[in-house]
């Protein structure tokens, strides 16, 4: 399959460069027609990707809206609405040439002015991740209708990554200019440049997208309709796959324990590719302000006490890879040559003994609380496992549960000892890794910041320096050094480089072709009819 995909991706690139060119006929028999039912869970609050970037919103709205770039499995930029681009030698000026025949769903042409409006106005107001990136720009200007130029105040290594569709979706200027973006009535009927148009949304039930007949890539898309079905119950979702009523699930739709069973089904195929851009990494977040968690030996002991292979095999049912440090191995600038923590309760006990934590009459040396993340049953199982595993080395763990709001509230206000967390890395340490560890991101009340309260001036320096250059070799050196220090300090106990299973009905081809996988536009997905 991957061979065919790669071959097809090349043809896609070619098509984008010269849109009038038909797909090389030799590639395969791609037919028009077909309806795809995809699970969407939880139901997105809104489909305007510029306003909301939750996972499910991305999957649906990724078919409606587009970005300037997309990324292949190795995170190399690929053309989308930008057919080519160049970077000045000093790494400060980025110039994009846009495709000339792209149109909004209402028929208006897509131009450089839409890009300027999106990146300098719309997203600055509504999109925190885009705001962080584009506030680094000194100016953003349209050189002509199809050329746009970004001038940075100083070089920023991962700037190109910021043009992926969910990081910077293009929004129509002619619709939003002068309105209050968040409450604009136009939000009910999203207008993008993508291959599928919004048709109908029956809340709580399904979202219906239809083929955009005016799509700027000739002959595409192939599918007539996509239905996104809302199915809140996990058990029902796997029944839906089994019975064939839905043809695709992604991210956390299928609970891990259903994965082995669904994998064996004859009508569906499973892949874990297509999440490289997100590359989530899971860990036990440790509040380093409290005793005994402030001692790095305790945190190292945790790394030895937890059998991450068991966690992968028995709790995640084989999905994922034990993590070696703060950077996912599919993210750029990963460093594998770091201190290793093998599963060894004896080493853990030795470290705890060294700290002077002696076992009491009840066999416990210390008592800590673990706030279980309310994101599904797998995390509950993990909590139960951690409790038993830590008990074996004499640490009594009390489990606490809460709902999403309570969890965010307590973790962001530092009211916890241990909790679980996983964050997306967005392809580059400067986008998705450093935020967890740098000390100027210790911000009370802000989720997914440095909530552990970890501070190391050397780590701060390395991360800052690495972000401000676009020379890859230099960046690799700096990031490698940072990773070595972090793995020694264990500010969080890394668990798994997470993999998400995507189940796709075998009749549907070309769904997962890039690093953003199911959030792709699906303009090249087609159905093989029997």
């Amino acid at each position, binding site marked *: 399959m991957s061979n065919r995909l790669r071959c097809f991706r090349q043809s896609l690139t070619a098509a984008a460069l010269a849109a009038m060119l038909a797909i090389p006929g030799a590639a395969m028999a791609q037919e028009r027609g077909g309806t795809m039912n995809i699970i969407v869970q939880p139901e997105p609050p809104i489909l305007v990707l510029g306003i909301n970037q939750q996972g499910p919103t991305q999957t649906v709205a990724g078919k409606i809206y587009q970005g300037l770039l997309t990324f292949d499995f190795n995170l190399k930029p690929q053309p989308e609405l930008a057919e080519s681009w160049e970077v000045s030698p000093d790494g400060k000026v980025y110039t994009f040439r846009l495709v000339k025949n792209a149109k909004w769903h209402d028929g208006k042409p897509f131009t450089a002015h839409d890009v300027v409006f999106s990146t300098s106005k719309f997203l600055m107001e509504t999109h925190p991740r885009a705001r962080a990136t584009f506030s680094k720009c000194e100016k953003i200007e349209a050189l002509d209708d199809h050329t746009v130029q970004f001038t940075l105040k100083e070089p920023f290594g991962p700037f190109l990554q910021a043009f992926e569709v969910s990081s910077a979706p293009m929004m129509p200027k002619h619709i939003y200019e002068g309105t209050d973006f*968040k409450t604009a009535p136009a939000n009910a009927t999203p207008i993008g440049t993508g291959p599928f148009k919004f048709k109908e949304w029956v*809340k709580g039930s399904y979202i219906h997208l239809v083929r955009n007949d005016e799509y700027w890539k000739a002959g595409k898309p192939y599918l007539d309709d996509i239905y996104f079905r809302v199915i809140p*119950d996990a058990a*029902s979702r796997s029944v839906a796959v089994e019975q064939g009523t839905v043809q695709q699930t992604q991210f956390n739709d299928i609970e891990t324990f259903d994965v082995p069973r669904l994998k064996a089904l004859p009508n569906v195929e499973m892949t874990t590719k297509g999440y490289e851009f997100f590359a989530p990494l899971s860990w036990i977040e440790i509040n380093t302000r409290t005793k005994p968690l402030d001692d790095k030996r305790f945190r190292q002991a945790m790394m030895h006490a937890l059998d991450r292979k068991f966690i992968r095999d028995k709790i995640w049912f084989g999905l994922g890879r034990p993590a070696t440090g703060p950077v996912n191995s599919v993210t750029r600038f990963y460093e594998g040559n770091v201190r290793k923590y093998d599963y060894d309760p004896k080493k853990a006990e030795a470290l705890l003994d060294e700290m002077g934590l002696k076992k009491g009459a009840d066999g416990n040396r210390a008592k800590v609380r673990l706030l279980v993340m309310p994101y599904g049953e797998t995390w509950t199982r993990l909590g139960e496992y951690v409790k038993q595993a830590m008990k074996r080395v004499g640490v009594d763990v009390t489990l606490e549960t809460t709902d999403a*709001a309570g969890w965010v509230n307590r973790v962001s206000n530092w009211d916890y000892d241990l909790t679980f967390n996983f964050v997306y890395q967005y392809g580059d340490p400067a986008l998705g890794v450093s935020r967890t560890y740098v000390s100027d991101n210790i911000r009370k009340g802000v989720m*997914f910041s440095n909530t552990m309260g970890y501070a190391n001036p050397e780590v701060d320096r390395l991360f800052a320096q690495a972000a401000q250059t676009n020379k890859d070799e230099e960046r690799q050196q700096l990031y490698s050094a940072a990773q070595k220090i972090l793995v020694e300090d264990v500010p969080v106990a890394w668990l798994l480089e997470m993999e998400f299973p995507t189940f796709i009905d075998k009749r549907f081809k070309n769904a997962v072709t890039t690093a953003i996988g199911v959030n792709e536009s699906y303009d090249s997905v087609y159905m093989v009819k029997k």
Partner: protein
Amino acid sequence: MPRIAAFVSQRLIKAVFVVLAIAVFNFFLVHAAPGDPAQVMAGEAGAADAQFVEQLRQQFGLDRPMIEQLGTYMGKVVQGDLGFSYRQQRPVFDLLMDRLPVTLSLTLTAFVLALIGGVALGTLAAMRAGTWSDTAITVVGLTAYATPIFWIGLMLILLFSVNLGWLPAFGTETIGAGYTGWEAFLDRVKHLVLPVTTLALFYMAVYTRLTRASILEVRDMDFVKTARAKGLPEWRIVSVHVLRNAILPVITVAGFQAGHLIGGSILIETVFALPGIGRLAFEAVLQRDYQVLLGIFLLTSVVVVIFNLLTDLIYSLVDPRIEVAP
């Protein structure tokens, strides 16, 4: 008739106060929870900064003093405005109306089935008190009453959907099937069979027990003995004299349980993936969507108040001797 009008208006005034009191009570209850929607939304947006959280909070009015928020809310409620769900970007009223048909078709069908089935089975059991059929009905009823309803739901899915493949396990319709008219209706009915059965079983057990007990009680009363002495056929005695009186406690309980059915529908709608009010309530709790939760509470209390009112009216119809006392 003017007496009934006076009675109804009096009850209505009382009902309005009950509903308002519940609105205030709920407001404080829900706000006692830790966390607010701004934080959840910011968290889920991925990279939340303080500015973003503050912006959301201002937008939602969450930065205003509590008493002011209550005032704003109550002022709107009085005008029939249930507020705006910022999470779903829609007015709460619209959300409720979207979800209401599913829950109503689920609960009302289950309710009617349970009531008819329960009264029928209870009557049968009472008429044959002491025989094997009475014992069978009682045992089955007790078992249904003692079983967690979500468990029944799961077992039914296992049997009828997974193993036998007779009925769909989730949703309200086959999407993309393009059914129209009669076919579409049949499709919806098929989707409702399992959830309705699950919900109805429990309540049927309740009504069966009540009806049986109530009939046994009334059966030996003087007016029944008189009727029997007159030589009226047994079915006539039961249907006209006994049932009419015996059904009163059943109606009372059923009226009270109108709201409980919505509670049950949280579980049913979760198991069968139905987009109804119960599921909306559960999601709203998890996501701290205050406005939606308050709206649902209000809606259900209005429904219950109406049902209680209806119960009283039916009472007077079933047994005209009973006065409609305020």
